């Protein structure tokens, strides 16, 4: 379950050591924008040690490395891959080739370290106009790609427009990202809401992202995590419906029916898959029931 992903600066021990209690399903330890160029080495070593020695509990750990047009990204991977992160986030991903470059280097490291192949996934950060246009190609460039991630701040700069709270300027990009991800069969995550002091706006923004089909949303402040989790959790109505679907399927099977209808609507495979997903989340959130 990955409703919320919280960015945390990679060179700040005080924040990293409390990562797991901030309520986020995943934390993104950032070696890129949150770290000054002169501190890239120290953040890299700190994040490596934190992953090696600190517990992150139930919180999934993702590491944002530096982009492939820098001198840092290979060193970042050298240090981080042995710690078996769940996902690596390569920023400024614009083409399928970009993904393949990172993929190849990770494979090289996995082999060298005797690690299981393709154990480490990728969540490319798409934050340029070219990246958005190539979103499907990026999402299907490698088996490692588990999800794609929209970065709205850099994107608006690239689009020559201003980032607003309403986000009309990125509505095309959002829709395109969701479409590309779903076409490629991967998850898709929304850009952070950047007004840290707006406790209402985060709900609106997260609800909008959910309505478009995003799997979850990122945050740059722990204050937004609760709202994101609430919005991206299944509602009791969703959960009830999911159980009804599964029950209808069970009865249909018992009766040897090929097609099953619920409330006058045919239940097809995608509906069942969604229902299963909803129940899995419900169970994880302690809202599941006995079968």
């Amino acid at each position: 379950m990955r409703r919320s992903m919280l960015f945390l600066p990679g060179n700040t021990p005080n924040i990293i050591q409390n990562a797991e209690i901030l309520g986020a399903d995943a934390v993104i330890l950032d070696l890129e924008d949150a770290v000054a160029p002169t501190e890239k080495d120290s953040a890299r070593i700190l994040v490596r040690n934190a992953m090696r020695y600190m517990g992150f509990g139930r919180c999934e750990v993702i590491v944002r490395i530096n982009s492939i047009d820098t001198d840092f990204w290979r060193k970042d991977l050298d240090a981080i891959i042995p710690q078996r992160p769940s996902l690596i986030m390569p920023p400024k991903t614009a083409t399928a080739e970009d993904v393949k470059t990172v993929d190849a280097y990770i494979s090289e490291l996995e082999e060298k370290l005797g690690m299981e192949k393709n154990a480490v996934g990728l969540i490319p950060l798409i934050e340029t106009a070219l990246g958005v246009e190539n979103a499907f190609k990026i999402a299907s460039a490698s088996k490692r790609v588990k999800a794609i991630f929209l970065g709205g701040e850099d994107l608006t700069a690239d689009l020559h427009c201003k980032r607003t709270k309403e986000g009309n300027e990125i509505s095309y990009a959002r829709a395109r990202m969701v479409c590309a991800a779903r076409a490629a069969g991967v998850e898709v995550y929304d850009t952070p809401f950047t007004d840290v002091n707006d406790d209402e706006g985060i709900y609106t923004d997260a609800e909008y992202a959910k309505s478009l089909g995003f799997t979850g949303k990122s945050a740059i402040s722990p204050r937004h995590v609760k709202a994101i989790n609430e919005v991206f959790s299944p509602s009791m109505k969703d959960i009830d419906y999911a159980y009804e679907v599964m029950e209808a399927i069970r009865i249909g099977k018992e009766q040897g029916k090929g097609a099953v209808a619920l409330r006058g609507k045919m239940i097809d495979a995608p509906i069942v898959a969604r229902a299963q997903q909803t129940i899995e989340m419900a169970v994880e959130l302690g809202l599941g029931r006995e079968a």
Partner: protein
Amino acid sequence: MNGKLVQSIREAIALSGLKSGMSISFHHHLRNGDYTLNRVMNEIAAMGIRELTLNASSIFDTHAPLEEHIRNHVVTKINTNYMSAALGHRISEGLMDAPVDFRTHGGRPRDIALGNTPIDVAFIAAPTADCAGNCSGKYGPSACGSLGYAFPDAMYAKKVIVITDNLVPYPMKGWSIPEIYVDYVVEVDAIGNPAGIVSGTTRITRDPVGLIMAETAVKVIQHSGLLQDGFSFQTGAGGASLAAASFLKDVMLRDGIRGSFASGGITGYLVDMLSAGCFESLMDVQCFDLKAVESIRTNPAHQEISAMQYASPAAASAVVDKLDVVILGATEVDTDFNVNVHTDSSGMIMGGSGGHSDTAAGAKLAMIIAPLFRARLPIVTDHVSCISTPGRDIDVLVTQRGVAVNPKNQELMLRLKDAGLPVIPIDELKTMAECITGKPNKPVRSGRTVANVIYRDGTLMDTIQSV
């Protein structure tokens, strides 16, 4: 014209008959902005008076010059309820021959009233006074709000000197302490620095760990069974405690709960709760910020209480005994729920009980909020360096990684577990912290006794050794 108004502090001291070996007192409402204690002590030293017992309700960093008066034997004994690090560290290093006696905000007025700690001359800094000594903290350029801690001094000291920087014509309106107790009045240019007396605003923490603890604290209150109409509440001015007050306000308004009162040190957050209808009244022994001062001056539901009414076990009844919930801090908590607020983890004095043990004893639910570890120091230990408040009076410890309920309160334990709160045995919290920080070496207590911690009923709770 009566003869109370005198020209200088020195004249008042002389007239009061203060002599070597006597006892003097001060209140701490001007907190770190106070000029009065230092000015009076300098006069006393200059007059050659020595070997005094200093009874100050609290001693702040601004009172660091006391060190010289102690070295010169002007002060040879201290009774107080709180001592911040500047003088505290010197005391821990063995500055004084006689141990400091720490009491609580309720124990101090008790012992003054019972004659256990008699005061010869009380010096009362008053933000506004008239020539007869009627005085108040609510008005004037150095306004501090409530004068709660000064009441026992005024009522029981043999001589009382009011020192003001805002002398108004007799009779002043809205006095707190009446002229019947006052012997001399002195006008000075300034009794304190307003910037240090109250904060402009007290702010809730932005620290995510503090906010998470505050959210958990409010859940504990919600599920304690105590949050209903008539609810009474106290919290400190620490960041996480204020955040808890702010979250509690949202819950009370959402659920339409109309509480009875909030007490203790009052901040703008509690004033907001009063104006929003969360409480009928504020019982204010001390104001922490300008909003609280403004409120106590203008809102009759915001009431000034004396230290006796606040917390004295010798009073016929006291506010703390009517509390439902109090939120308190801690520098250390041990696995028996004993709490240390006097010393840091190295055993150096840097605080004191204040109202900690009084409210913990009185409230139905005494909650400690503390992070599992500060920097690298675990909060939960096997044995606290100093027992300030006994574990029997503490019900629950809230940290960012779990809630430990005192096994003596099984009902609360069940309620919180049923509510799905992360209830963990306290020794597991300790293990969890030590897994993260490593196991700290415990400094051995050796040295001689530099302070006694006297519980609110007058019994000796613990001693503090030199470091």
